[in-house]
């Protein structure tokens, strides 16, 4: 490759959009009704995502890590515009898309695509692979029905599968092949932002590395941004430039991956990282494990103040009084913990909620 063509590619990308694929989410909150009264009005609500701010710089990968009940999947669905937030805003490439619906939403879809966790469930079992991967192009009028097979073969080949697979049905493919098909389907429209929700957790170890390689290569080729949602620190660590750690609907720590992994500041991040066993017995034996005690609180009834305080080894009485806010403690590294910053709102102020 010569300098000129590399330069040309760079300019082309600048022309498609100054910051194609940048995401700015502010104050995202999503609640789900837990119980309803006789008239169908919700009487109690679960705050799945509670005031989350998240930025994805164009062309980079941001990982969201959390355990079950952390709200990471809901956050992914909000950002993919599959769910509408109760409050907050989602700005994609400088345009507020939070309240888009109908034609406007359909027109936006090509820029924003999703890869789901379950490669077995996310392909329609009654449709061939060719239909699955070329359908996005058909729906957006980019191709005619007669062009589907050719387009499909091209897309299938692009994710490293044999084009002949396009004639098969999902039931005939292995998990790894299906996940490649899902990625091909998501990439058909050349999105600027790809939301990948646990793209490898249903896959075997050897298949996982294939999918990680594929996501990496595709990003290097096309420069799209990726929001990678996972419970697996190793996956996020491998792909993401920045990582956000979620606990009970909040982001507790967010920063550059090496910094968060190498020197975690929030007690929960520390516990989470120490709980991930390292696949090396010699190293693993010398590691200090932080075993958390107590149950994960019920997300419908989170603790007052800091939500992690009930399981935190460093909790002080003030943790129950003040709801910590994410504060930048180092350049580009935010932590919501009273150990590291005083930022927060007194609980009494937040109570009538």
């Amino acid at each position, binding site marked *: 490759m010569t300098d000129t063509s590399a330069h040309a590619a760079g300019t082309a990308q600048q022309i498609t959009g100054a910051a194609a694929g940048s995401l700015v989410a502010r104050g995202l909150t999503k609640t789900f009704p837990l119980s309803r009264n006789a008239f169908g009005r919700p009487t109690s609500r679960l705050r799945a995502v509670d005031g989350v701010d998240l930025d994805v710089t164009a062309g980079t990968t941001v990982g969201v890590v959390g*355990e*079950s009940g952390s709200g990471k999947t809901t956050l992914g669905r909000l950002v993919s515009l599959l769910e509408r937030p109760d409050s907050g805003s989602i700005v994609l490439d400088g345009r507020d898309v939070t309240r888009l619906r109908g034609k406007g939403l359909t027109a936006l879809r090509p820029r924003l695509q999703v890869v789901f966790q379950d490669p077995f469930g996310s392909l329609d079992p009654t449709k061939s692979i060719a239909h699955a991967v070329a359908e996005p192009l058909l729906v957006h009028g980019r191709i005619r029905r007669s062009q589907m097979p050719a387009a499909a073969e091209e897309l299938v080949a692009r994710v490293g599968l044999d084009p002949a697979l396009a004639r098969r049905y999902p039931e005939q493919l*292995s998990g*790894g092949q299906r996940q490649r098909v899902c990625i091909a389907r998501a990439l058909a429209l050349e999105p600027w932002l790809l939301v990948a929700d646990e793209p490898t957790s249903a896959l*075997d*170890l*050897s298949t*996982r*590395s*294939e999918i*990680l*390689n594929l996501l*990496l*290569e595709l990003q290097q080729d096309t420069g799209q941004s990726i929001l990678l949602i996972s*419970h697996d*620190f*190793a*996956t996020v*660590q*491998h*792909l993401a430039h920045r990582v956000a750690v979620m606990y009970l609907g909040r982001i507790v720590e967010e920063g550059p*991956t*090496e910094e968060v*992994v190498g020197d975690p500041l929030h007690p929960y991040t520390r*516990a*989470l990282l*120490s*709980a*991930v*066993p*390292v*696949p*090396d*017995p*010699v*190293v*693993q034996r010398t590691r200090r*494990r932080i*075993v*958390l*005690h107590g*149950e*994960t609180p019920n997300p419908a009834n989170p603790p007052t103040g800091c939500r992690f305080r009930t399981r935190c080894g460093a909790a002080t009485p003030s943790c129950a009084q003040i709801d910590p806010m994410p504060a930048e403690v180092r350049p580009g590294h935010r932590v919501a913990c009273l150990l590291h910053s005083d930022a927060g709102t007194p609980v009494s102020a937040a109570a009538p909620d």
Partner: protein
Amino acid sequence: MNATHEPLLAVDGLTIDLTGPGGQPGLVQDVSFEVHAGESVALIGESGCGKTMTAMAVLGLLPAGFRVAGGSIRFQGRDLLACPERELRSVRGGAIGAVFQEPMSSLDPTMRVGDQIAEARRLHLGEARKVALRRARELLDRVGIPNAEKRLAAYPHELSGGMQQRVMIASAIACDPQLVLADEPTTALDVTIQAEILELLRDLRREQGIAVLLVTHDLGVVADFCDRVVAMYAGAVVERSDVDRLFGRPAHPYTRALLDAIPQNGRPRTVLPVIRGRVPAAGQFPTGCRFEPRCAHGGHERCLQPQHEAVLPDGRATRCARVADGDLVLAEGGAR
């Protein structure tokens, strides 16, 4: 390693056939390994490698269509395959406790937690309900369930996943077993909960000398918890080793490739080595080395012969003929 030389569990040449149309003779082929008292052995491999089938055969719980075609499973010197079903039942749940992947589907949803744990003692030891329930309370304490007295009366769905798995463990150790067979006990759990459960199993091993046969695909868990490793691929044991040497100097191309496929801390955003191709489906196992079509060192004429387990001078066992006689030397070094 042990005072007594007789292993607690000795699986020798176990072969399981999948019968019926599209069947696979030798779905599990010639599997041999031992578990000594108090030690922790990992049975690893990807889905479809036969590790769960092997574990099920030990429990005498093979699903319909699967048939033990050869070999022996000796537990405390007794061949379980030759045992009548009645005797097998006294071993299963008695001297061998079992923990499965999905606690919610392994516990009876209509039965109180206390009764489920007490049931094992009543069945195997003939204890009265009251006595057994008192013991169940102690067991819940033992596995770290707070408010044990109150939880005795709870139904499984009222507990979190981690708590359910603790209940499973309590009922697995209810009759003071010598061996707990745990099939992916933490796969469905969050990592912080996984750490707690592994901690609990570690305590049980230390304090009660219980041996654990852990079926898992998570190499991190293996490194964390196990003494020895039995690695399986396509129904055959490809390598047996102690955990340090497996991660430091694997003796089979498959285990080497698995270790290489783990994302490495030091080198983020680099292309990971992959294992080409797919695990062969049952009924389509190669006649030679079963890993050969995907092996980075395949294509050698000796790979086309059926492979047999060979014990290396340092005590490890490999099912790669070329590694066994020094023709092939695999790279050293662990995952990182």
